[in-house]
């Protein structure tokens, strides 16, 4: 059976796409599963958190997704992505489980959006050569309605044996819900062309604070989430996956270390990002709860794949 392919996608920014991607990577890696994270965002947030020395912060010569997608307009015989892809896959940083690999993004990836050439299928094509080496392939997408990178990611996420899906993180806010509507629309459009069997793996409620004052409003958005119906894909309620991902507060009560000092405003989640460590190694009960929820989501998706 092929790898479990999941694309974390919403048009809205900051809903937790990258956190879910790397959270699932951390949990799956901890279990010894072979994980590939593909970063389709030119800000390369996922790659940095995964500790890959992308060109702008480490190794200027490291090969990235940009090099895989780029085709020199003067080159009459473009390199086949199935040949090139192995050079673009790197181990995650040393704090990460040893079975996690990364196909990183970089800033210049933004140039690909304006490519006139047909590059949308290069990633999917490249993956044919290496997909067999992985149990889970995660695609971290940028918050965009469309474009070459989103298309390339969603086309590749379908996978050759079908069954690949889009995981939509939704904050319980207007923005989060709008993001779901738009993501579903994009899935439907992808099905009309590039990836006919692309599915909705699920909607996960993301960054949900336990704050008492905020509870009422979140309940209201939660209700809305469960009441909406997509005319083609069915009730949203049936797509909602697992428990809400709790928002984790800062672990640093006091600035007791340099890193803590720098990130004292940030949440545990953000500290993990800053320190390039997996969320699975963050201390505290809240972080454990978050990790457990990632684990449940992964279990649900793996079970569903098995039953297919």
């Amino acid at each position, binding site marked *: 059976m092929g790898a479990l392919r999941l694309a974390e996608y919403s048009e809205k920014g900051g809903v937790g796409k990258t956190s879910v991607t790397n959270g699932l990577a951390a949990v799956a890696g901890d279990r010894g599963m*072979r994980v590939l994270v593909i970063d389709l965002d*030119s800000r390369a947030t996922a790659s940095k958190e995964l500790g890959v020395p992308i060109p702008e912060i480490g190794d*200027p*010569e490291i*090969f990235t997704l*940009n*090099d*895989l997608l*780029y085709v*020199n*307009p003067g080159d*009459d*015989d473009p*390199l086949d992505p199935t*040949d*090139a892809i*192995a*050079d*673009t*896959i790197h*181990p995650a940083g040393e704090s990460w489980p040893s*079975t996690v*690999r990364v196909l990183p993004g970089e*800033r*210049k*990836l*933004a*140039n690909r959006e304006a490519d*006139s*050439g047909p590059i949308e299928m290069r990633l999917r094509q490249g993956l044919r050569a*290496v997909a067999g*080496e*992985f149990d889970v392939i995660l695609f971290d997408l940028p918050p965009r*309605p*469309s*474009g070459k990178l*989103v*298309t390339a990611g969603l086309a590749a996420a379908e996978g050759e044996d079908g069954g690949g899906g889009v995981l939509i993180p939704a904050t319980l806010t207007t923005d989060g819900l709008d993001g779901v509507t738009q993501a579903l*629309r*994009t899935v*439907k*459009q*992808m099905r*009309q*062309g*590039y990836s006919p069997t692309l599915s909705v793996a699920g909607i996960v409620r993301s960054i949900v604070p336990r704050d008492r004052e905020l509870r009422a409003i979140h309940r209201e958005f939660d209700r809305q989430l469960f009441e909406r119906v997509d*005319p*083609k894909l069915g009730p949203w309620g049936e797509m909602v996956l697992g428990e809400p991902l709790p928002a984790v507060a800062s672990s640093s009560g006091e600035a007791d270390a340099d890193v803590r000092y720098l990130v004292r405003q940030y949440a545990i989640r953000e500290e993990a990002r800053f320190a390039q460590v997996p969320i699975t190694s963050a201390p505290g009960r809240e972080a454990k709860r978050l990790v457990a929820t990632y684990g449940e989501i992964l279990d649900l998706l793996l079970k569903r794949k098995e039953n297919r």
Partner: protein
Amino acid sequence: MSSLIKQGRGRSGLSKAPEGDPAAPPPEIALPEPRPGEASPGAGGVLAAPGEAVERLREAVPRPYEPVSDGDLLGAQERRDLTTCEAALEHLRLAFWVAGRALQVIRDARLYREAHATFEDYCLDRWSMSRPQAYRLISEWSLAERLLAVSPMGDKVSERHVRELLPVATVHGDDAAELVYATVAQADGVRVTAELLRDVVAIVPTQWDPAAAVLIIREFLDRDGQGDGGSVGRRSPFQTQTTRVRTGLADLATRLRKGKGGDPEQVRAFVADARRLLDQIEQSMS
């Protein structure tokens, strides 16, 4: 466990993409001048001279030439030429809404003010463009931009599509027009054409209710699809007219039911009249 991709590393001949930073201006384009204050959101670069973008396209598009090969597949040069020519056409397709945005910037920020007293004077004098023309372009661009966004995978949105939807946008807002468009564009086996959009716009209820509108449009597309092998778009004038009448009546019925009707006398007179006309239609068949 496998080696997780190490074999053959570095032998593929892959090289780093040689281009510059995505935010760096292309060499032909002048650096933006510092702007006064933060008034302009100006995201893009500055075109140094009018017509420059088009000039660059003209240089890139090759002179016409005879076929160079009989093969089924294009050669590398042919493929490049096709890409360039298509880029030029794409430019034309998109230029209309960029023009609208440009006009709006000039109007709203009063950039015409050095030499002209009013925006209308400016349009006429500088572009021989009437006020309605200019305002039409302005009202179209924002809608066009939204439609391009809901049509992400390359559905072609043309000026004609936008123009057909403009009445809905004017009466019910851009959200409504976007929903109408998306409903049509996402229906199975439907090719979006200006004609189809016009028919759909004609049946949009005058009382805007998104859910009802979507249902009515779907039903319309389904009903129409059955006749001739699922192809919507080629509709007889009879179909178009009956659809409009039917929706008009349905609309009226809804409003009356909600107690938003007119004078009962008038309503009764209308019903009698309509019955008589329907009888005539029926008789015409025998």
